[in-house]
């Protein structure tokens, strides 16, 4: 009975009994006589719109009054050239940032660059595409044969990585708008204990693993979906994400750049590359040989004078203090612990990997096809009432359910394998973190931690040697 108006419309059109312009009215009248109002909004309209041919109900009229058909407007998108300009601005900003951090050593200049990046990449460009989110495009293009990364997105992903390999995390210092928005609100930093810092940072690795898992399976771009600041950049967004962003910004007033330290998935990649960068931030000025610094034997030509003035200058907990000597007893305990942890590492990775693979059914629901298949199954089995838009749309396509189920189980299988990798990755990172904690690193000077240092430049002016450099006093004057 519900389909009655449609059938009448079709029949009348097919038979050509009524003039095209009044046909729907006939349908309506018939519907009214049968006691059924026509309700286009509630009709199973989906089944009616299968292909172009399906909707050919009324032939286009032949006008006699000289009426000229307008054509629909198609406003042009933002031109590609602007995208290339964005990439060039990124390149320039990275170069300037490296110069300011390593050569000029000026906090105020770095801050000015960060504000520029916040205004340009943030508010003017409204956040998209950003280097952090570009991880997912790259991953998707590796796993999905039909998806190709636009060259600009590739540039946004790659340029900061290359710069980090050479200069340390200069991208974080003054180019990333997400970092900049947190940096400008940081007024009263509190120190996060080292153990808490390390533990919270594990979340960033989990987030990176999850982002890769969901991007690789083509389920979702979760970094973009849960980006707390992009709705500020766009000055619009739903309340949930605005609340999240507001909370993170509120925390940023007291905890230095919490997103960068504990959440940012791109940051954990940059951390590792920064460990082996050619040049990196030093608290005391002067040319440093990274290989020598790494041994912890000396701070380089301009040595730290252990004045401890910089000790509390870093709001991100990235300054490492000189270490005390170890006693022989500590040494043997430490050696045993390290051996044990190294043996346990594969066990940890495998067990967390197994746990990850068990999450496949839950994780796979991030994929629309799996959600749809589950819904269709429930409806067919009579376990769910009514229909959803998605299940209606699926049934309108006439695709067999078996095919949908096959696709869904295919995706689930991907999640099983992906879950192993995801869990294994998380377990490995946790194990390596424990090993890192048990490894003795000797230090004689106050140093910026190569991985954690965001190159913000706050510590520079705490160093008396830096003041000497700025005033052009030679290092030898201090030695006396």
């Amino acid at each position, binding site marked *: 009975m519900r389909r009655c108006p449609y059938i009448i419309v079709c029949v009348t059109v097919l038979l050509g009994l009524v003039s095209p312009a009044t046909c729907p009215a006939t349908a309506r009248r018939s519907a009214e006589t049968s006691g059924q109002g*026509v309700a*286009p909004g509630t009709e199973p309209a989906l089944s009616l*719109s299968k292909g*172009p041919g399906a909707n050919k109900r009324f032939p286009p*009229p032949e006008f006699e009054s000289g009426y000229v058909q307008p054509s629909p407007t*198609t406003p042009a998108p933002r031109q590609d050239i602007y995208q290339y300009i964005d990439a060039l601005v990124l390149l320039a900003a990275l170069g300037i940032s490296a110069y300011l951090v390593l050569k000029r050593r000026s906090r105020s200049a770095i801050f000015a660059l960060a504000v520029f990046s916040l205004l340009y990449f943030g508010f003017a460009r409204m956040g*998209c595409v950003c280097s952090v989110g570009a991880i997912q495009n790259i991953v*998707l293009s590796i796993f999905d044969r039909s998806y190709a990364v636009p060259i600009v997105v590739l540039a946004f992903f790659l340029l900061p990585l290359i710069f980090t390999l050479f200069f340390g995390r200069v991208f974080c210092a003054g180019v990333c708008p997400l970092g900049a928005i947190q940096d400008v609100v940081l007024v009263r930093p509190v120190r996060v204990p080292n153990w808490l810092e390390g533990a919270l940072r594990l979340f960033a690795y989990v987030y990176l693993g999850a982002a890769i898992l969901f991007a690789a399976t083509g389920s*979702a771009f979760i970094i973009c979906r849960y980006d707390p600041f992009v709705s500020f950049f766009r000055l619009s967004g739903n309340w949930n994400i605005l609340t999240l962003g507001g909370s993170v910004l509120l925390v940023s007033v007291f905890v230095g750049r919490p997103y960068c330290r504990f959440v940012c998935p791109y940051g954990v990649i940059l951390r590792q590359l920064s460990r082996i960068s050619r040049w990196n931030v030093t608290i005391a000025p002067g040319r440093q040989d990274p290989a020598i610094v790494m041994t912890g034997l000396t701070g380089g030509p301009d040595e730290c004078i252990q004045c401890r003035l910089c000790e509390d200058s870093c709001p991100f907990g990235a300054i490492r203090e000189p270490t005390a000597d170890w006693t022989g007893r500590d040494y043997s305990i430490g050696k045993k612990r390290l051996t044990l942890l190294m043996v346990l590492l594969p066990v940890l990775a495998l067990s967390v990997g197994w746990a990850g693979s068990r999450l496949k059914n839950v994780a796979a629901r991030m994929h629309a096809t799996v959600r749809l298949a589950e819904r269709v199954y429930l409806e067919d089995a009579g376990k769910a009432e009514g229909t959803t838009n998605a299940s209606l749309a699926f049934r309108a396509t006439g695709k067999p359910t078996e095919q949908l189920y096959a696709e869904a189980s295919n995706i689930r299988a991907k999640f099983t394998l992906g879950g192993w990798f995801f869990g294994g990755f998380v377990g490995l990172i946790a194990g390596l973190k424990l090993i890192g904690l048990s490894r003795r690193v000797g230090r004689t000077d106050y140093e910026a931690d190569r991985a954690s240092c965001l190159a913000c430049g706050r510590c520079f002016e705490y160093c008396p040697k830096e003041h000497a450099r700025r005033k052009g006093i030679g290092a030898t004057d201090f030695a006396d």
Partner: protein
Amino acid sequence: MGENKRLQAGVSRRRFLRDSLWGTCLAGLGVLTGFVVGKHRKTNTLWQIDPYTCIACGNCATYCVLDESAVKCMHAFSVCGYCRICFGFFGPEPVDITEGAENQVCPTGAIKRRFVEDPYYEYTIDEKLCNGCGKCVKGCNAFGNGSLFLQVRHDRCLNCNECSIAAACPSGAWKRVPAERPYLLKPALSEVEGMAAHPPQAEHGAGNHA
């Protein structure tokens, strides 16, 4: 002296290991670049709705990150039947067949109806008023030629990396399309004569959720 030598050996070993790791990372980035560039597209991509898959569910009006959605209704005049009683224009049970707001299906009154010649009426979309809810699209698809359809208006779209509407689309109608052909328009009916049931596909459509 021996101590010093041992330290120097340590330094050069560390330096060697570090340098090789550094080189490996750089080479790795190079390989990644090569792989990705090997299949790269020269132009950028934009989001668009396939009008033949769209079910006009209404999500486009509410899920866009913009307060006023980037999706608007478009009218393919060449497909339109110019009906006097248009179900994209009139509500399910209009009080009267006039332009009165109570008779219209559009919640914002964005469709303008104009008499052309007997018995034909022209329907145009006032884009400033349209909120992309697709109520008219549903009516036109159900009872008319389907000349009304939803499209992303690229002067408004921010081209988010993950489109919020695409993530919420129940029918998988959202696609990434190459920037040089940013619209998936409905062709005139005469153009689709003899065409297969499949509408023109977007190149390398990456599905709606990727």
